C-alpha cells in the first residue's frame, strides 16, 4: 500500500495538466462545454454542467503559468531522481 502524499501530488499534477490541455475551440465547443454556451439565467441555481464548465475555465486561466513552473520542476526532479 504505497499510497503516499508524494504520489498524491503527482496524481494531482497530472490531473491539472489534463484539464489544462483541453482546447477551447477544437474540443470544448464541439461537445457543448464551451464557456459561452448556455450559461443560464440569474435567478436559477446553476446546474452541474455550468459549474463544471466554469471550473474548467477557471483552472485553465489560473493554472496556466504556475503549471509551466511546476512541470519544469517535476521534469528536472524526475530526470535526476527517477
Amino acid at each position, binding site marked *: 500500500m504505497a499510497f503516499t502524499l*508524494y504520489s*498524491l501530488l503527482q496524481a494531482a499534477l497530472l490531473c491539472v495538466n489534463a484539464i489544462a490541455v483541453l482546447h477551447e475551440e477544437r474540443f470544448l465547443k464541439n461537445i457543448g462545454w464551451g464557456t459561452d454556451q448556455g450559461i443560464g439565467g440569474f435567478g436559477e*441555481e446553476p446546474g*452541474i454542467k455550468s459549474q463544471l464548465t466554469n471550473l474548467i475555465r477557471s483552472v485553465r486561466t489560473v493554472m496556466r503559468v504556475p503549471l509551466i513552473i511546476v512541470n519544469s520542476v517535476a521534469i528536472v526532479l524526475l530526470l535526476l531522481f527517477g
Partner: protein
Amino acid sequence: MHPAGAAAAGTPRQRKWPSKRRIPVSPPGMADPHQLFDDTSSAQSRGFGAQRGPGGLGYPAAAASPQEAFLADPVSNMAMAYGSSLAAQGKELVDKNIDRFIPVTKLKYYFAVDTMYVGKKLGLLFFPYLHQDWEVQYQQDTPVAPRFDINAPDLYIPAMAFITYILVAGLALGTQDRFSPDLLGLQASSALAWLTVEVLAILLSLYLLTVNTDLTTIDLVAFLGYKYVGMIGGVLMGLLCGKIGYYLVLGWCCVSIFVFMIRTLRLKILAEAAAQGVPVRGARNQLRMYLTMAVAAAQPLLMYWLTFHLVR
C-alpha cells in the same frame, strides 16, 4: 525540577540536594546555565529561589549566580541582552505573520475541549443511536466552543486518534514481526493522503452541487477524522481476539460512524426542510442526499481499507 524552587519549601530538602548535584566548577565570571539548578548554598541564591519558583526557565545567569558575576563580565551581559532582544523581535514577527498562513485563532476554537466533552463525544461515536438533538448551538452568530456543545466538531479527537492509529499500527506490525520504522511513516503518509483525497472530493462535490453550507474545510477534516477512533478499536480488538474480534468491533464501529455521519451531515448539507425528516422532492435535494450517503458510505470502506492489512 527546580531545587531552588523547593527552597521555599524547607531547608532540610535543600541540604540533601547539593550533595547529589554536580559541584559547580564554574568560576564566578561564567554565565553558566547549570547555575539554574546548582549552588543553593549561598544566601543570595536562596533569596532568589523563592522568586524564581514560579518564574520558570528565565534568565539563568541573572538569578542564580551572585550579582558580581554579572557585573564583572559586561561582554556576556551585553551579548545576552542583544540576543534576548533579537529573540523578542523574532517572536513578534512570527506572531504577526503566522495568522496569514495558519489560521491560529480559528484552530484554537477546535481545541477548546475538556474531559467531559471528549468522554461524551467518544461515547457518541461508538453509540449514536440514542442521541436526539444534533444541532450545533450558536451564540450570536458564532458556534459555541466544543467544550459547551457536544455536537460541535473538534480537532483534538481526530488528531489524537490519528497519532494513536499510527502507534497501534506499529504495534500490530510488531506483533507479526513485520515492523520496520519506515513502515510507520508509510502508514501515516497513506492515511493522510486518503484524508486529503476525501476532503478534496467532498469540496469538489459541494462546489458542483452549489450547496450553500457553513461547513468549513477544517470542520470537514474534523468530521472525517472521527473514523480513526473506530479503526483503533477494531485493530486493538483484532490484536486481542484475532480476526473474529476485529470484524465484530469494526462492523459495529462502521455502522456507528455511518449513522453518526449521516445525522451530522444531514443538518449541514441538506436544506432545512429535509433535515427535519420531511422528504422534499426535487432533483437538488436528491443529489444532496446522495452526496451525504456517499460521504457516509465512504467511511466504513476506508476504515476497512486502512486496517485490514494490520490484522492477520
